[in-house]
């Protein structure tokens, strides 16, 4: 037994395992485009033939267009608000110390580990008690709550890597607070800000449980998809929609990754650094 473990951790078997693991991770993702271009109404193998009709169908579905508009609005608002809140918290955590800081920051980061259903139920209960009606804004409120911790994590490393002497130099040279922020601080943390905007946008675009609980008559894209999953005849076009979403998400993440690396390099870390991501 010990010998087997020894061989496992010290040889090429780890590389084989890593490749097999990646196949497991990518298995569902690879199927999505396969069925999106498949000329059959049933989602099963064998594949029948190539078609783009499921994509054509998407252009003529009015309900979907409404959901896309709603999701874009929600995701954009969420990205802006949570990055702003994240920047305040990250700056405070990086440059200042006050009693109880750890506890307070821990509380703000709590949504990261809290089950989404708890967040959703809690917000729903409060809105019911206050007699507020559900709308896209209630969804945004929930999304900002779960996205802010991600934004803080990304921006914390951006602020932590920034030399405070640069800001002090700017003050010494007569810049105002605002001038220093605009001309020194912001350019230095810009890659982190863009990375945070993109990641929070992507999270919000994908989020289902909170949207499902807090959405009113205007549905977001994942809620729309959920309603379609019940109808077998709608499935191929859902696959097509999923493929488009996949491409958009990966493109956004790719851009975010480039900015994150640029930020890491600007702060003198190597390009292979994982700073900010983990």
């Amino acid at each position, binding site marked *: 037994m010990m010998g087997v473990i020894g061989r496992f951790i010290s040889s090429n078997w*780890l590389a084989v395992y890593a490749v097999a693991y990646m196949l497991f991770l990518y298995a569902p993702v690879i199927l999505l485009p396969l069925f999106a271009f498949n000329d059959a109404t049933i989602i099963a193998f064998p594949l029948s033939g190539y078609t783009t009709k499921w994509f054509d169908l998407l252009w003529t579905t009015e309900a979907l267009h409404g959901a896309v508009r709603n999701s874009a609005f929600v995701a954009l608002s969420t990205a802006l608000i949570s990055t702003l809140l994240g920047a305040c918290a990250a700056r405070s955590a990086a440059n200042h110390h006050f009693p109880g800081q750890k506890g307070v920051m821990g509380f703000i980061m709590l949504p990261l580990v809290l*089950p989404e259903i708890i967040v959703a139920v809690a917000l729903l209960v409060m809105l019911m008690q206050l007699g507020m009606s559900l709308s896209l804004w209630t969804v945004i409120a929930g999304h900002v709550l779960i996205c802010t911790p991600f934004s803080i994590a990304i921006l914390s490393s951006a602020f932590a890597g920034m030399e405070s002497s640069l800001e002090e130099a700017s003050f010494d040279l007569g810049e105002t607070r605002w001038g220093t922020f605009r001309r020194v601080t912001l350019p230095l943390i810009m890659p982190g800000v863009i990375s945070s905007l993109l990641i929070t946008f992507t999270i919000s675009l994908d989020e289902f449980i909170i949207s499902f609980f807090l959405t009113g008559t205007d549905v977001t894209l994942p809620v729309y998809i959920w309603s379609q999953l019940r109808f077998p005849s709608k499935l191929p076009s859902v696959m097509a929609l999923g493929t488009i979403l996949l491409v958009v998400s990966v493109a956004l993440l790719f851009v975010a990754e480039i900015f994150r690396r640029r930020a890491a390099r600007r702060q003198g870390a190597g390009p292979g650094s994982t700073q900010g991501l983990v």
Partner: protein
Amino acid sequence: MPSLSQDSKQGLTLLSPTLIYALVMLAAPLAMVVMFSFWTQNYLDLDRTFTIANYREAWTQPIFQVLMWRSLKISVIVTVTTVVLAFPIAYYLSFHVKSRKALWLFLITVPFWTSYLLRVFLWKVILGYNGVFNSALLNLGIIDEPLTFILYNANAVVLTLAHAWAPFAILPIFVALEKIDRSLLEAAEDLGDGPVRRFFRITLPLAMPGVVASTLIVLIPTVGDYITPKLVGGTDGLMVANMIQIQFGKANNAPLGAALAVSSMVVVAAISVSIYFAGKKFGGKVK
């Protein structure tokens, strides 16, 4: 607050928008859920007299006991599976991959960013009666008829969740492994430890904080998962979150739903705290 330094005041002022948001949107709603759980639903009205009837129901009714027990069991199996599968990957990345670590990490996180809903649905496609897995095995002649024990039960829930939470398990372990001072490993080797002894006496104890972090990051949210049991779990795979949703929706009994939510959070919190302290006790130092 006159006793606070200038620096502390600035820090608090800067943090205040985020903190106020979290207080209003997280602390207040959570407090309200707790309050709700002590009230009673009378059709459309709420009876605001204090009662523990909801908790009595949540803890004694067989259906809730079954769901709670099953949720915990599934979450624990998912967590152990995910962390055990993730450890070798994190180890490989940290100790064997030399120049392309960031690329590997990026590739590991990409599937996680695609629609959760669709990923779960696609597992249904993979595991179904006429699914990818069964047709592949049939074509290869390994089985004569499709396997039915892989969909609409707890197995499917475990597999799908282990997939969904993989990056969350890998990253904390990877970070902990990266922090290990490599000279300690050389020292162990010089003092005559083989690779296996070295692994169990140096690497694993030092990686323990990462293992504990990934265990908690996977365990806590999976107890509250709602989509996976609903899509691939069948009736045997339904979990407590589905019951919470039913109470807030169709059953129109929000107070009971709130009591279930609070109960499950208390149980999960208790388990998490014990895991945290167990991890502190058994890891973190070189023996």
